[in-house]
């Protein structure tokens, strides 16, 4: 009886002790929230080093892109404690800063001697600063990303196609440097038979639900002369958003959609674009640079078959590209802010950033991207560098969501549904955006 009692007591103490130990171990676990995509998998791999160095475990909450904003903005708005660290979209920074969702990092950066001068300037403005162009930092640039293009190098290099193209257009079939050239190439490949299969010109963003068509149309509009506001008078949009040049840019985007996209590509974004390229449907493919490592490795279209080029120039020689990517922030509702800051400090480290790039993440640290070996480190590295030098971003205002929804509607109504004129669409956009800023008391 006694021995049974002893055994029971022993077991009970062992269980409670192990529970206590496990509680201690898990008390330091950090949860990092991000979108479910290839770079997130690379970050899981990278973070193992952090756990090895600090003993702090890492848990990850990854949500598909379609639910990414809904899920995490709800989490932040409800002051949830799920995420200790969050890699939030660049447009969220204004709202997250003004609503107190993120910890301001200025003091921490000063204390740890983390300088924003060490990062690519566009990514600091895009992912970290609010208000923009002021030294108020809410995130560390984590994942550089930008819209660029891939093309079928193997198709472009076919002698018979090169000959036919030269005869038809008078210049060599090669990655385009202007949008006019891009359209000519797209038209050339549209409905062409290659290897017994009908192929199409280009895959571009047309998605209606989240942000797809805005990211795609803006990518073109910037280079045509679109500006969000009067540089001298904030929120004055008349004559800038709907300028003659912007109208031409939107008209071009529609003509590209009409002439040269695969049938039924009326709701296409990152995933659909990758599918179209991987399945050998299109000659060119507009997408964020994060897709490039995966495509490069693809057995059917990667390796020597794929090439990369920067978003082409507009009619006046202007050249810009839509910024993507995100910064990493500490959530202000987290109980483990100290450990979360340790992670940020570790992540900012030069060696960690170099490994981040090698695993498939896009580092924003100058020491990595300005390394002389960087351009040759991957076939797409130079295109990424060149693209990051010309980026522009969508509004990062706290009201970015209704601003984005307005552009989604106006662009889709015109480009895909063919309703009204480009001028109507952009005039309507000025009206919608004005209403949003009036509701915010900014106009």
């Amino acid at each position: 009886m006694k021995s049974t009692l002893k055994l029971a007591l022993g077991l009970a103490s062992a269980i409670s002790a192990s529970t206590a130990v496990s509680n201690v171990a898990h008390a330091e676990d950090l949860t990092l929230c991000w979108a479910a995509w290839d770079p997130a998998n690379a970050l899981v791999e990278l973070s193992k080093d952090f756990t090895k160095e600090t003993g702090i475990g890492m848990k990850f909450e990854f949500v598909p892109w379609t639910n990414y904003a809904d899920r995490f903005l709800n989490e932040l708005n409800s002051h949830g404690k799920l995420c200790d660290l969050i890699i939030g979209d660049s447009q969220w920074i204004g709202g997250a800063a003004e609503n107190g969702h993120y910890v301001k990092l200025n003091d921490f950066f000063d204390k740890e001697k983390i300088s924003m001068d060490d990062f690519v300037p566009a990514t600091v403005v895009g992912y970290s600063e609010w208000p923009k162009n002021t030294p108020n930092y809410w995130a560390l640039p984590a994942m550089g990303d930008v819209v660029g293009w891939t093309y079928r190098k193997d198709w472009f290099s076919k002698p018979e196609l090169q000959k036919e193209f030269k005869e038809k257009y008078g210049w060599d079939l090669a990655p385009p440097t202007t949008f006019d050239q891009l359209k000519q190439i797209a038209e050339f490949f549209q409905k062409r038979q290659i290897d017994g299969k009908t192929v199409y010109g280009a895959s571009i963003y047309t998605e209606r639900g989240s942000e797809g068509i805005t990211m795609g149309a803006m990518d073109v509009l910037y280079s045509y002369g679109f500006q969000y506001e009067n540089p001298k008078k904030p929120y004055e949009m008349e004559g800038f958003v709907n300028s003659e040049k912007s109208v031409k840019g939107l008209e071009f985007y529609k003509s590209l959609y009409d002439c040269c996209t695969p049938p039924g590509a009326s709701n296409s974004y990152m995933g659909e674009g990758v599918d179209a390229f991987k399945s050998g449907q299109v000659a060119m493919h507009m997408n964020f640079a994060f897709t490039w490592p995966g495509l490069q490795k693809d057995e059917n279209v990667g390796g020597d078959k794929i090439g990369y080029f920067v978003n082409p120039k507009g009619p006046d020689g202007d050249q810009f590209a839509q910024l993507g990517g995100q910064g990493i922030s500490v959530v202000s509702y987290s109980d483990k802010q100290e450990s979360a800051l340790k992670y940020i400090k570790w992540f900012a480290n030069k060696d960690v950033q170099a490994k981040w790039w090698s695993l498939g993440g896009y580092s924003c640290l100058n020491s990595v991207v300005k390394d002389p070996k960087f351009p040759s480190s991957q076939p797409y590295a130079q295109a990424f560098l060149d693209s990051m030098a010309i980026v522009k971003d969508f509004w990062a205002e706290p009201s970015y969501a209704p601003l984005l929804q307005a552009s989604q509607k106006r662009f889709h109504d015109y480009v895909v549904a063919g309703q009204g004129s480009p001028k109507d669409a952009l005039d309507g956009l000025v009206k919608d955006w004005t209403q949003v800023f009036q509701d915010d008391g900014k106009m």
Partner: protein
Amino acid sequence: MLNRTADNVARATPEPLAKKIRGISDKGLAWLFISPTILLLLAINIFPLFWAIYLSFTNYRANRPNEVVKNLGLSNYQRILGDQDIWIAMQTTAHFVFWTILLQTVIGFTLAWLIDRKFRGHAFWTTIILVPMMLSPAVVGNFWRFLYEPQIGLFSYVISFVTGIPPTNVQMLSNVELAPWAIIIVDTWMWTPYVMLICLAGLRSIPEYIYEAAEVDRASNWRQFWSITLPMALPFIMLAVLFRGIENFKMFDMVNLLTGGGPGSTTEVASITLKRQAFESWRTGYSSAFAIILFVAVFGLANIYVKALNKVKQR
């Protein structure tokens, strides 16, 4: 076993409590039983409704919790009623409701009438017809999205085979003219069996002796249909129309899965607009006002309809 458990519970109940329980009236007991349901309804239906009514008069935005909430009076309602996009969404909704109800009623009643003939194998065909209704809308939406695919979709190939138009030109979900019909086709495919079932119940409820009397009077089949079958089944048909009308007025899942409201805003029904305003633009107060307007519209129309239905039943 149940009796023994009940005896045990009765024995274990303290005497004062048992006396109190015995003293409860039938009405009290009824309230005791339904109170959990009422509390649940209050918590998840009534309270949110009143909360939404309150929010509809404010500028509250769920993504700006720190902002001061201002009372806007009726301005949200005023803005919605003056918003052209909202009226377009209402027209789109009305278009869907009209065509889906018309097609589902006509086809559903015809199928019910055929099934009611009790031909050989009618039970098997009834089961087959009911299958679409049993599927989840998410499955149906994805399934039809593939069928409509212009490059690999079966639907495009069938249309191509019949008409000679190349399959890649049959772009059901991308074409402004065809996209609304793509949704109407799927909704009709899925919910016609439901209308058929209700109509079948109506047809089976018509007493056989009425037809026998009509036969004696030498009434033609057509005359029997117009004078007996249709009038007597009418309340059931109207009931089916009511159910489908309410359901289709708030149609969301199928549209969201098939077109997401596109191309452009061609298939953007009221529920999609509401979702966009509430959960994408985060205009909580504004979208609450819109939800209230929709609620009043459905509730009002349904009430008028039910009165008409009662009149038909009393005839």
